[in-house]
């Protein structure tokens, strides 16, 4: 890395480009925001009539952390997959031939995915008072930080996957065999400890489980110890997500360097 100011500028402009395009494409914002909101009110609202509140938490409140997790998962992976688009449409060459390090490209892409995710998380947080969840300012900051860590690690995970994809055709495979299972096996919709044993073991191996649980530790703290509450101590969630972040960040860099 020859010049830190230059690399910083490159990281800035790589993420700025993605954000600019995200904000420009209104339909994309609507599309990505519609998903968690629909789930929240259609699935969450419907199920609330079947499932009794436990520990002062009703079902729609129970899945709210999961909806944040889902938003981050989709936004981060989708943003990272833009690398495949860039390769397909040639723009990646413009980036790869520039006098900047491969590390800056990955960091720029990771920051882009993180910012786009966080923008959507902020929109979702409007529903906190609507759903009757009470959090204070430190909790809000903690929520923001946990979401950010999760978003960054999932974007790096997406970059790792994208740098191994040679064409956009693999996208559906990734969506159906990786992203959807990660979502369903994360405790977002259903407490992990109540899952059938095989699925439960898979959920334990899913880093998103700990990301969602971390959010539950903040948003559903009152229900701790009940089926609706968080399942692990916050520190466990933090350590797992932080570990996942470090591993995906390193692997994303190695993988991108090799593919580029």
């Amino acid at each position, binding site marked *: 890395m020859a010049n830190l100011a230059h690399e910083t500028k490159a990281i800035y*402009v790589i993420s700025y*480009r993605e954000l600019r395009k995200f904000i420009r494409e209104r339909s994309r914002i609507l599309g990505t925001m519609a998903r968690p909101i629909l789930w929240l009110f259609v699935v969450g609202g419907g199920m609330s009539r079947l499932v009794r509140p436990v520990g002062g938490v009703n079902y729609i409140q129970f899945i709210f952390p999961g909806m944040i997790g889902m938003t981050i998962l989709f936004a981060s992976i989708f943003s990272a997959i833009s690398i495949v*688009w860039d390769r397909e*449409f040639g723009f990646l060459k*413009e980036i790869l031939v*520039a006098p900047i390090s491969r590390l800056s490209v990955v960091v720029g892409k990771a920051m882009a995915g993180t910012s786009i995710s966080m923008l959507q998380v902020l929109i979702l947080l409007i529903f906190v008072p609507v759903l009757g969840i009470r959090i204070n300012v430190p909790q809000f900051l903690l929520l923001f930080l946990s979401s950010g860590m999760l978003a960054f690690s999932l974007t790096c995970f997406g970059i790792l996957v994208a740098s191994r994809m040679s064409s956009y055709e693999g996208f559906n495979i990734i969506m159906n065999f990786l992203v959807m299972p990660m979502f369903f096996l994360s405790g977002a919709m259903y407490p992990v400890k109540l899952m059938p044993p095989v699925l439960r073991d898979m959920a334990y191996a899913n880093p998103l489980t700990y990301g969602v649980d971390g959010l539950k530790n903040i948003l559903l703290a009152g229900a701790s110890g009940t089926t609706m509450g968080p399942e692990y101590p916050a520190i466990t969630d933090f350590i797992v997500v932080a570990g996942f972040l470090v591993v995906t960040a390193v692997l994303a860099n190695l993988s991108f360097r090799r593919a580029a």
Partner: protein
Amino acid sequence: MSNITVNSLVKKFGAVTAVDGISFSVEPGEVFGFLGPNGAGKSTTISILCTLLGPTSGDASVGGFDCVRDADAVRRSIGIIFQDPTLDNGLTAYENLLFHAYLYGMDRAKAKKRIEDALELVGLSARKNELVRKFSGGMKRRLEIARGILNYPRVLFMDEPTIGLDPQTRNMIWEFIRELKKNTGITVFMTTHYLEEAEFCDRIAIIDLGKIIASGTPSELKAGLNGDTLNLSAMDPKGLDAEIRGKFGMDPKITDGGITLTVKQGDEILPALIKGLSTKITSVSMTRPTLNDVFLSLTGKNIREENGDPYGPMRSYARKNHGGH
């Protein structure tokens, strides 16, 4: 010192040898052209020179920096217009250039000034805030050229810069390259399979199947052929033939209603011939050799007949160029 030096460069893709031991050098301020049919290895050579591909063997340096060991220094000193489009269709013209400027470490003020200048130069100032998606193929190409020179490169690579463009835009681009060369002393390395375009180059190398089969100035290459063809029509072709043999010691062929002759420096011989002949001549014409003749004489095939579809690359350019993003 040369601005580009290439020594015994080889690039293999599995069983395919795309570049097969080429060597050449390009002097500062020169416009150097790679002329060759589809699949000759032109783009592969450019990819190695601009550090996107590593060579299988041999070495290459640009601006005195080794393309493998000193890739970063090479990247800082070059500009590239790739064969296939590399713009972001979802950004405006201005944003595409701003992105480039920041990647090359410019600050905001410098970037703004250079972008305005570059847009002015390629005639896109009025459209700078439009999405590139809405641009025509020619406008996109001009924007890519503006982007290629934004960082004031010492060496500019252009891979088929005018492919798929109409004659006006092609001329505009050529005018632009000449101005650029005159004003900045930039070194240009370009590839083409348009023969007319190769004629604009100071020096060219003809490449086929990964090998350089000839190089020199366009006129040197053409001079290597037998020369110009003179056609003289006359009422009495046999008489003309005899007179030319007798007076000039040449070896014409009799054709329908005249004779044909192959000579070096046809432009000098023709007036002398007409002056010295007493047989009545009804018309004269002269054709000069083209680079295609050079290519034909070296390889036994026409440069454009490759794949039976000379517009293939053009179509693929147009297709990619109009795809969404």
